[in-house]
Structure formats: structure tokens, C-alpha cells
């Protein structure tokens, strides 16, 4: 397993798409800093006539949401690029157990996503709070210490999305198919469920991928129906099920 991990680490490290994803993540953080700076400047200009109140959604959570997509694409690419080039046959010759191979990929991508997710969320939170200073902009109403659970959970969602990416890639074997499916889960499905009439709107929305982190942090809005433990179970299930399906399919299909 150590060798498998080393092999997967080498593959991720040497692929061009990894660098592109890194650039995309850096751009996300930069954009959030820019957003914070712009909001702060605007606040100074209109403070007199807005009564000194403004509501801006948390740049850190937005950064986590965008980073989740970037890392999920990385997760997809680690497996679909092997299917596209035929490298998968070599990989399975060297490591004949598809389950172990997939697990190693998920572990490497998950590790990268775990570190990236936490760095991005906490980094963005620190930078954006530093930029806006003591202007009351909503997202910095509470001290950073009170925001830690939400930030931790948001960072974890990056890990979850990345592993979902690996699983979907293994199931669908096509970058386009896997990324499109991912985007359905990441964005399209949640906006559809929000438009359902009550009561099923809240019920279905609460198990959408992007709604789970806030419920995990116990900071869910009124329509959150899952306990933190339930949300954690949901996140683990989202990560594990595609991976499991991918392992089973890889064992049964000709590579």
C-alpha cells in the first residue's frame, strides 16, 4: 500500500492538470481577497447613507465551495486520465487489485484536498478579515474563534468533493461525463431542490452535498434537518458510495 501511495503521489505531482488546479485555487483565494477589498472600499464610500450596516456572505465559505470544484476536478482527472491514455492497464498490471488502486488514489487526492481545503478556508478567512478590518460587514460579526467549526466543516467539504470526484471518475471513466455529473451534484441539483414546494424542499435540500458542511458544524439555517452526526454520515456516504461502485465496476470490467 505504501508503494501504491508513492506511485499515486508521483502521478499527481507530475500531471499538468495538477498545476492548473493549483493555479485555479490560488486564483480563488486572490479573487476573495479582491472581493473583500472592494466591499471594504465600497463600505467606506456609502457608510453615511446606508446607516453603517451591510451583509456580505462569508468569503471563506465561498472560497471553500469554489475550491471544492477545483479539487473534485483533480480527483476526476487522477482516474479518467488513466482511462483516456490506457495507463490504467499498466497500473492494474503493477497493482492488480482495483480496490487498492482506487483507495490509494482517493487517499492521495483526499490528503491534498484536506490540506488545501483547510489552508484555503482559514487563509481566506484571515485575509478577508484582515482586509475589511473592523468594518461591520456581516460575515465578520462574530470573532474568528466562533467561526472555527464552520470553517473546519467547509474545509472538510473540499475533501469530500475530491473523493466524490475520484469515485465518479472510476464509475464513468470519462472526464467530461464525470465533471458534468459532479457539477449537477455541486450546483444544478441544489437549485432545483430549493425550488420544490415545501415540505420536501427542505428535506431534500438538507442532504445536498453543499448543505452538509454547515449542518456538520451545527450552524445550519432553520431548514437544516440533520444533526452534526447525521451530516457527517451523509458526507462519508457521498464520498464512499461512488468509490465503492467504482471499485466494483473496475473489477468486473475489462480495463
Amino acid at each position, binding site marked *: 500500500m505504501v508503494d501504491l501511495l508513492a506511485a499515486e503521489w508521483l502521478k499527481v505531482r507530475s500531471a499538468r492538470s495538477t498545476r492548473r488546479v493549483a493555479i485555479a485555487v490560488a486564483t480563488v483565494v486572490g479573487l476573495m481577497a479582491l*472581493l473583500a477589498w*472592494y466591499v471594504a472600499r465600497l463600505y467606506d464610500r456609502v457608510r453615511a447613507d446606508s446607516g453603517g450596516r451591510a451583509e456580505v456572505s462569508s468569503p471563506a465559505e465561498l472560497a471553500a465551495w469554489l475550491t471544492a470544484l477545483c479539487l473534485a476536478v483533480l480527483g476526476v482527472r487522477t482516474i479518467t486520465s488513466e482511462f483516456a491514455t490506457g495507463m490504467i492497464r499498466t497500473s492494474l498490471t503493477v497493482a492488480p487489485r482495483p480496490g487498492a488502486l482506487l483507495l490509494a488514489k482517493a487517499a492521495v487526492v483526499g490528503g491534498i484536498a484536506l490540506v488545501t481545503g483547510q489552508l484555503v478556508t482559514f487563509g481566506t478567512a484571515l485575509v478577508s478579515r484582515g482586509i475589511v478590518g473592523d468594518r461591520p460587514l456581516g460575515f465578520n460579526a462574530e470573532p474568528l474563534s466562533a467561526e472555527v467549526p464552520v470553517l473546519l466543516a467547509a474545509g472538510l467539504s473540499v475533501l469530500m468533493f475530491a473523493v466524490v470526484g475520484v469515485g465518479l471518475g472510476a464509475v464513468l471513466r470519462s472526464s467530461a461525463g464525470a465533471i458534468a455529473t459532479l457539477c449537477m451534484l455541486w450546483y444544478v441539483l441544489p437549485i*432545483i431542490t430549493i425550488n420544490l414546494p415545501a415540505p420536501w424542499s427542505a428535506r431534500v435540500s438538507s442532504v445536498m452535498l453543499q448543505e452538509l458542511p454547515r449542518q456538520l458544524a451545527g450552524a445550519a439555517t432553520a431548514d437544516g434537518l440533520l444533526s452534526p452526526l447525521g451530516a457527517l454520515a451523509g458526507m462519508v456516504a457521498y464520498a464512499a458510495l461512488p468509490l465503492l461502485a467504482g471499485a466494483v465496476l473496475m473489477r468486473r470490467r475489462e480495463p
Partner: protein
Amino acid sequence: MTGALAAEWLKVRSVRSTYVAVAVAAATVLLGVLFVLYAGSVWDARPPDRQPEFRAARPEQGFLPVVQLSLAVLGVLAITSEYATGMLRTSLTAVPRWRTVLAAKAVVVAGVALVVASAVLVGTFAAGRLAAGDRTMGFNTAPVADELPLLLASIASVVVMALLGLGFGAVCRSAAAAVTAVVGVRFLVPVVATLLPPPWGARLAGVQLQDLPATIAGVETTGGGEPAVGLVLLVGYAAVPLGVAAVLGPRTEA
């Protein structure tokens, strides 16, 4: 050009991904009916005096992103699969002019998108109305003729999404990058735009791909644009990436 068109049609017709994309888009009809049936059960459970105020979204509009995304993927794959397999070199040997190849692909992709989007969106519209019956659920109160402009503009937006996918695919040369870029333009830019404080939020709201069908049809505009301007913008979303791809050339690493 006829030969190039026939070749592209054969390629689209013979790959499995086309059928997957069309099947996903077609699933919209079923999802739309399920949505209306569920909304109908909520309507039935309401006391009669509260039924008239019930509003449900138009099913064909609610699921429009699914149709748009699946046909955008079709557009992306029409070109990136050739880069991935090296087939593009063969294509350019057979048809040495890049712009002819690209134009033929654009015509075929647009044609498939037009047919699929018309069938799926009109199908969802009709099935939704049938499933709603005589309940007043907001989306089915206007006469069919009043809904036609939005329906036609939505069909056009699907064709544009497919061409946007083809253009991005030709520029990025990678399915992963192109699909991500399409998603960025279609779904991410609107989210980021709503976060921007005025005046930029409002300025960007009027030019979003997601709002253009409503703008063109002259209904429920959030950005409040002119229909003609909306149409020009919609055409621009398809034409600009394809134009860039035409200028850049095939860039095969041969």
C-alpha cells in the same frame, strides 16, 4: 462542406457519449412530470381558499440547466475526444482546412442541440401542463401562446450552450478544462455576480447566460435588458469562443 458535414454527423452518431448526453437531457421530461405531480399533491392538500395563491416554477425552466449542461458536454466532446485520441490529425488530413472542420462540427452540434432541446423542452412543457390538469399552479395559468417566446428562447439558449461547449473544447483541447470552463461561465459567474455590491452586481446581472432567455422573451427580467440586446448577447456567447478557436487554429501536437 457536404462531405465534412456527413463526416461529423457520422462521428456524433457513432459515439456512445452522444446517446448518454441525449438520455440525460431527455430525463428532464420525466423529472418535470414528477415535479409537477409532487407540486400537485401539495396543491391538493391545501384548503381551497389558499389554492389560488400557490405558485410552482415552470418545470421546463427548472430543469433547463440539466438540458443545457448535457448538450454543452456533447459540444465539448465533439472536439476534445478528437484531441484525446489523436483522431484530429486524421480529420485534418481528410479535410485540411481547420475552419471547415470547425464549422461542420458547429453545424452538426447545433442541429443535434436544436432537435433535442425542442423535443425535450416542448415535451416537458406539454407533459407538465397535462400532469397539472386544471389545478392553478402559477406556471400553467397563462395561455400556451404567451409561453412560446420563453420556450423558444430557452431552446435557443441550449443551442448556444452546445456551441459554447464546442468553442471552449476547441480552445482548451481538454474535456476536463472545457467542461469546467463551461460550468464556470454558466453557473459560477452568476453566483459571483450576485455577491458583488452595486453597481457591478446589477451591471453583470443583465448579461448572464442564465437570464438571457427571459430577457429575450421579455418576461421576468432581473437585469432589465432589451430583447434585441439579449439576442445579440446570446449569439455572442456562441460566436466568441468559436471565433477564438477559429483564429487559434487546431494546434495539434503532431
